């Protein structure tokens, strides 16, 4: 077995990052111009990294599949971004943010990375305000905060229900400024198809121009993946339609280890599924749990009448309502972390107390908050979310409680990276959601935006220089090298094979089936038998996909069905690795809940003796099982405990 070197610097945790920066290698200004860096993805991580690297003087090429970098899915994040500013004087500190994040992740993240994240969180807020991000303010002109799940302090900065949009527009503005200056070149409507490795180092990528269909070769002294998570393997998720795993998956097949693929976040407050024609699920921000109270009827017969439409939520008197989060978790109440809230909703619905036509929904009620604060205040806080809900569901949440149910939202797993955010392939970096490092087995709300911008603005622009300092003697390589040619030929072959299937069915047929398999077998709760069955079903559906789909048109033109097939083909392979990882991890931790491993009260039961490690999977070839490498996790600055929110 390979030993995974996380390259965590020596010294006390609070000094590691400072010491690292003080001693790392740097690249001189005149050499920076000579170095090319490829960044794939223009979300918070990609845009902030590309802009910062461009400002430093590197020659950056950035790629996205959308028409504009401003459309990356970070834009859809609603609730906020955490930072340890302690502006509220409520006892917050870098240590407390670090502690909450490690505990929230169920002690399955790397301590040093998380500490650094908490440390730079404050810089992010300063940076964003300087860029003109219109965070919410008090009448005195200073910034205001709200609470998110898993924390006892108010440390979340927000811009109404559009925080991701405003942060991304800040990073996008910085990126466009560099594009105008010529330090960054944008390649939009491009999909990364393969990674090019020369002499063991990442040296470029093959992309498909989605308008012309042509394959292109691009060289970089280093390659940075900022391509987001893989939640769309479930077909229905809160991800954008185009969000995909392909870039990360190609990197995995070229030797980058994939860590903890089973760690998936299921967000408790989404609009419930209502039909098989549905293309995606819509999140209702976690911030709603600041003022909304979650409940189901206390009596089964009431729940049944609600399902049949014979009773309305407002007909149920308070004493017949079960505010089950407040009942089970008095300390955190409605603000327990996402995994806990999701499982509790599932437990109630499985027990027969669910509401809505399908019985797979619970109420999120603002009645008390409106009585206490007035409708105006609630509207000012959540107006756009209420409007969004009303447009989708055709029901007024100011008058009747919202109905919500958990949905796939975020993936904690991803490419394995060391402290420098480098993958197991030298010169290949992974930042933001595509890496695995900071959230352990469960991510806390408002921490994804924090991590994306921390990696992009304040971590990668330092650590990548430690690598590039040794590359200043490497001239720009010709893309006619055999490694580039071979990579392009392999892509051409794969795409031709997809085109050549010439079956008769649309891709969605198989994609939706994969989604059902994943939700039922590798979803909110898992067990050995279900996972084994799931693997068999995934293999069967993969086989059918490769024989029965029909992609119209040709390779050399805009072909949306081919784009989809290309992505789904990778999801069909990833799905099996996720199930395998879930099968291997014989414990419950965070978002990974194995039914066999639970406490008497139904809470997740970890097995620290055997599973306190990062599971990093190495690809061994198309017909061989992947090899598991373990990075042991050590906690020197936090006492590992049973995670309790009671």
């Amino acid at each position, binding site marked *: 077995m390979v030993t995974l070197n996380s390259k965590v610097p020596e010294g006390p945790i609070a000094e590691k990052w400072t010491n690292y920066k003080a001693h790392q290698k740097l690249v001189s200004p005149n050499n920076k111009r000579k170095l090319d860096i490829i960044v794939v993805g223009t979300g918070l991580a990609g845009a902030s990294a590309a802009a910062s690297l461009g400002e430093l003087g590197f020659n950056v090429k950035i790629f996205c599949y959308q028409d504009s970098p401003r459309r990356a899915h970070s834009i859809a994040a609603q609730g906020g971004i955490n930072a340890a500013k302690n502006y509220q004087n409520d006892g917050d500190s870098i240590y407390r943010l670090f502690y909450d994040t490690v505990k929230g992740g169920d002690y399955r993240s790397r301590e040093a990375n998380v500490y650094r994240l908490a440390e730079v969180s404050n810089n992010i807020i300063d940076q964003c305000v300087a860029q003109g991000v219109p965070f919410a303010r008090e009448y005195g002109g200073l910034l205001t905060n709200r609470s998110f799940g898993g924390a006892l302090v108010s440390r979340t900065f927000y811009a109404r229900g559009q925080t991701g949009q405003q942060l991304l527009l800040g990073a996008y503005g910085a990126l466009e400024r560099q594009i105008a200056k010529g330090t960054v070149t944008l390649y939009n409507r491009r999909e990364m198809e393969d990674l090019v490795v020369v002499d063991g180092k990442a040296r470029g990528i093959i992309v498909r121009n989605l308008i012309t269909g042509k394959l292109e070769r691009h060289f970089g002294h280093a390659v940075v993946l900022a391509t987001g998570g893989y939640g769309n393997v479930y077909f229905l998720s809160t991800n954008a339609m185009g969000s995909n795993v392909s870039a990360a998956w190609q990197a995995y097949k070229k030797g980058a280890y994939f860590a903890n693929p089973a760690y998936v976040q299921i967000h408790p407050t989404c609009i419930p599924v209502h039909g098989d024609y549905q293309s995606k699920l819509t999140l209702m921000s976690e911030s709603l749990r600041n003022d909304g109270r979650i409940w189901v009827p206390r009596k089964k017969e009431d729940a049944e009448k609600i399902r049949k439409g014979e009773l309305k939520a407002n007909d149920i008197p308070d004493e017949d309502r079960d505010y089950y989060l407040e009942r089970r978790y008095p300390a955190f109440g409605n603000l327990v972390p996402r995994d806990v809230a999701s499982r509790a909703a599932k437990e109630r619905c499985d027990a027969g107390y669910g509401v809505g036509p399908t019985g797979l929904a619970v109420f999120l009620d603002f009645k008390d908050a409106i009585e206490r604060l007035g409708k105006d205040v609630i509207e000012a806080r959540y107006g756009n979310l209420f409007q969004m809900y009303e447009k989708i569901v055709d029901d007024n949440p100011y008058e009747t409680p919202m109905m919500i149910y958990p949905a796939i939202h975020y993936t904690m797993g991803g490419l394995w990276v060391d402290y420098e955010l480098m993958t197991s392939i030298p010169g290949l970096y992974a930042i933001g959601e595509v890496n695995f490092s900071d959230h352990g087995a469960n991510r806390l709300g408002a921490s994804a935006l924090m991590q994306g911008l921390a990696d992009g603005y304040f971590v990668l622009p330092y650590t990548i220089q430690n690598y590039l300092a040794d590359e200043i003697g490497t001239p720009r390589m010709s893309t006619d090298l055999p490694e580039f040619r071979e990579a392009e030929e392999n892509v051409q072959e794969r795409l031709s094979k997809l085109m050549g299937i010439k079956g008769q069915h649309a891709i969605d047929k198989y994609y939706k089936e994969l989604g059902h398999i994943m939700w039922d077998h590798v979803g909110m709760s898992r067990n050995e038998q279900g996972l084994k069955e799931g693997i068999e079903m995934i293999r069967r559906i993969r086989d059918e996909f490769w024989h029965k789909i029909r992609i119209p048109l040709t390779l050399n033109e*805009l072909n949306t069905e081919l784009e989809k097939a290309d992505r789904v083909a990778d999801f069909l392979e990833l799905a099996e690795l996720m199930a395998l990882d879930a099968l291997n991890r014989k414990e419950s931790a965070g978002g990974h809940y194995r039914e066999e491993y639970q406490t008497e009260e139904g809470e997740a039961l970890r097995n620290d003796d055997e599973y306190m490690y990062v599971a990093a999977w190495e690809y061994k070839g198309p017909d061989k099982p992947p090899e598991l490498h373990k990075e042991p996790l050590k906690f020197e600055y936090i006492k590992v405990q049973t995670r309790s929110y009671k």
Partner: protein
Amino acid sequence: MDFKLKIWRQKNTTAKGRFETYNISGISPDASFLEMLDILNDQLIEEGGDPVAFDSDCREGICGMCSLYINGRPHGPDHGITVCQMHMRNFKDGEMITIEPWRAKPFPIIKDLMVDRGAFDKIIQAGGYISVNTGGVPDANAIPIRKENADLAMDAAACIGCGACVAACKNASAMLFVSASVSHFTLLPQGRVEAKERVKAMVAKMDELGFGNCSNTGACEAECPKEIKLTNIARLNREFYKAHVS
């Protein structure tokens, strides 16, 4: 629900386009408009045809990628939402629905219902930002900002860059888009520092790219999915004059 769909089909930027009519049936009133088009596309593929190309990504009204002109209105008949947020219950059973791409010279058609909005990125490149590098900035609370101004800046910054304002305007003017960006930064002390240069550069770029002028009809405001107000255009004009006279 059943519908007759009249959809603009165009192979590429230079090809000549035409309307094609399709029938679709059994659509749930709770399906979104784009889900209805997904169903149509799957149907076309199963029948051996070619799917209709259209842009969409987040499907929750925030990325700004979707861009359909439905029955003569950008983003369709409902108010204050993008087409991905619109549901079929907004239409009558059996209705004929006409679907076109954005119609504006600065947004050339790529294929069918997809257009190239790269011109918007170019306008932002001209100055739609505050010129600060990463690092070396003051503490976030160092400069208090009037809540009223922060709120107005947020109202303007809510623009999703979809281009409905341009598509709705008979002059294909980008004034609402540019004014949203200019207002957002102008209202904040951090953005005032380079206010003059910003407004001059962005307006010049907008003109250069072939967007028309504003004739105050207000179609842009009426169709904006984020309800960006015309008062932003007034602010843009004021900033523009100030930059030129002082």
